[in-house]
């Protein structure tokens, strides 16, 4: 049988193979995605900046390098040579404007590149652009971007989730084969769920945070979004590993992840945490789709056990004290002096007040104030100290659960994608979207989200697997077994098929 000609709907794995065999060039692949972008991006707004000329030049250089290697068999070909990807605009790429979706960093061009990105560049990727994000990654809908929201390709009136909503929408609409995101409280997994793609939040410390603009430093992770989990593996394994520039990155060997067949889940114990199915405001179709997916894994031979993570309900207040506290300190650096635009004033103090007051958006100011309050004299013990103690209990919940089971399976979010503007006036309602994703960040464990169905309105539903520290391999094994025997991850929004 003749192989199908390459199209932008090919999986990342197929695209790499087609590049390796010479069936298609990096220039052709990159051009095909840039063409889709030119047609679809005006309606989706997944990107804050696109670099077509630079990307094509990089693609041509990759093609030349591959051509050279054909004549010099000793020459090593980098594993991702010529593969176009997008990068969330909270990760520094030397020479590309980095705004974090904020007016306070308008025009900032970083003189350095994030380690995670550099490792992929060394492996040969072509960066086509920087994707939209809630300002400083603070949000669950990408509506907090100072440069306008991203639209969900499945329904343009709905949010793509957040904060990595630009990366998720770009992958869902097949504007790129994969994109980097970051996950501090669910910011890779929840948008992956809302847009029907797969998304990995690695173990805390697995991927260097150097060059990731700090939000909640004890929670921040760099992750990947792509249509299938098999597509995530090569990027993840190349990004992972200790980095002398991030003292919290861990020197734990990066496993060589092989993706065995669906029989590999036989005997694996999957825990269903009951607290993740009881949430107020839970959309019944979401719970149902996740239960069906777990049954599917059971049919493949997994053992399913109900478990309890008793402190789950406290993850929300714990997170929304700890993350804003860390943010209030991390964002103190934005003062209009060393980088970013400056609001003019006669005295330096007024430069601070004005630059920060006028250039931070409402949610960022809200979180800075929340954190400042939680850390201030008289409230520290009741809020911050108590939150860090309850965080210990949340972490112990996971440790106890992983004594009984290999991985946990749960919904990613209580609902499918909501409407643009639906929750912007009610911060607490927006925070409640994160209840199922926050615990993994607080405990530092890895989480992998992937599509398991659609609701009656045709919106994707996601499930997440969580595992012990540094056991991303287990999550991949289970999710890959699921994806080999289902086809939710191959569905593309109708919009993505529009031509012309």
């Amino acid at each position, binding site marked *: 049988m003749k192989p199908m000609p390459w199209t932008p709907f090919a999986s990342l794995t197929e695209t790499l193979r087609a590049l390796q065999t010479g069936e298609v060039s990096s220039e052709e692949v990159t051009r095909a995605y840039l063409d889709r972008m030119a047609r679809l991006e005006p309606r989706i707004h997944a990107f804050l900046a696109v670099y077509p000329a630079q990307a094509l030049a990089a693609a041509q250089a990759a093609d030349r390098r591959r051509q050279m290697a054909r004549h010099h068999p000793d020459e090593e070909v980098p594993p991702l040579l010529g593969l176009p990807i997008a990068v969330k605009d909270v990760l520094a790429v030397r020479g590309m404007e980095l705004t974090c979706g904020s007016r306070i960093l308008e025009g900032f061009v970083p003189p*350095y590149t994030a380690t995670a990105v550099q490792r992929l560049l060394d492996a040969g990727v072509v960066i086509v652009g920087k994707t939209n994000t809630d300002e400083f990654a603070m949000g669950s809908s990408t509506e907090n971007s100072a440069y306008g929201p991203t639209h969900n390709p499945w329904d343009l009136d709905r949010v793509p989730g957040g904060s990595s909503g630009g990366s998720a929408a770009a992958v869902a609409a097949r504007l790129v084969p994969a994109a980097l995101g970051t996950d501090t409280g669910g910011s890779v997994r929840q948008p992956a769920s809302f847009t029907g793609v797969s998304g990995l939040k690695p173990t805390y410390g697995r991927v260097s945070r150097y060059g990731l603009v700090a939000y909640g430093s004890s929670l921040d992770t760099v992750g990947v979004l792509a249509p299938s989990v098999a597509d995530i593996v090569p990027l993840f394994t190349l990004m992972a590993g200790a980095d002398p520039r991030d003292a919290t990155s861990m020197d734990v060997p990066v496993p060589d992840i092989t993706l065995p067949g669906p029989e590999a889940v036989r005997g694996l114990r999957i825990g269903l945490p009951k607290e993740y199915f009881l949430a107020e405001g839970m959309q019944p179709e979401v719970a149902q789709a996740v239960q069906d997916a777990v049954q599917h894994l059971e049919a493949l031979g997994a053992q399913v056990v109900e478990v309890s993570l008793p402190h789950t309900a406290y993850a929300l207040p714990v997170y929304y004290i700890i993350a804003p506290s860390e943010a209030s300190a991390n964002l103190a650096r934005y003062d209009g002096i060393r980088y970013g635009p400056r609001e003019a004033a006669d005295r330096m*103090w007024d430069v601070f007040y004005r630059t920060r007051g*006028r250039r931070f958006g409402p949610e960022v100011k809200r979180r800075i104030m929340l954190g400042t309050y939680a850390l201030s004299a008289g409230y520290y013990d009741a809020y911050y100290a108590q939150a860090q103690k309850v965080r210990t209990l949340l972490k112990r919940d996971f440790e106890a659960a992983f004594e009984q089971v290999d991985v946990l399976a749960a919904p990613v979010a209580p609902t499918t994608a909501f409407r643009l503007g639906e929750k912007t006036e009610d911060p607490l309602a927006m925070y409640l979207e994160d209840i199922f994703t926050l615990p993994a960040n607080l405990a530092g464990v890895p989480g992998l989200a992937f599509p398991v169905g659609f609701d009656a309105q045709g919106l994707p539903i996601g499930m997440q697997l969580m595992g012990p520290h540094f056991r991303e391999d287990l999550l991949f094994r289970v999710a890959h077994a699921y994806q080999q025997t289902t086809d939710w991850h191959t569905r593309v929004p109708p919009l993505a098929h529009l031509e012309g």
Partner: protein
Amino acid sequence: MLSREEVIHIARLARLDLSPEEIERYREQLSAVLDYFARLAEVDTTGIPPTASVLPPRSVLRRDEPRPGLPRDELLANAADTEDGQFKVPPVLDEPHGG
């Protein structure tokens, strides 16, 4: 419920200029969030240590050797105002808000 004065105090600590409308909006929104957070007090944390890190504690050491940093001109290129290879700021003395 937070008072207006408390919101102004927090904003001052955080070096944020807020309009009167913002002060009122944040007073309502932050009060609602803090009310919700009050449930944390229900949890008995007697004898529970606070989380310092989710990872096992360990020493991270490196050789104390000088290495090149980023070039000065590239770092200054992002600043709003510079002079003689340095960041330039307006007068620093007498903070008006007395913070």
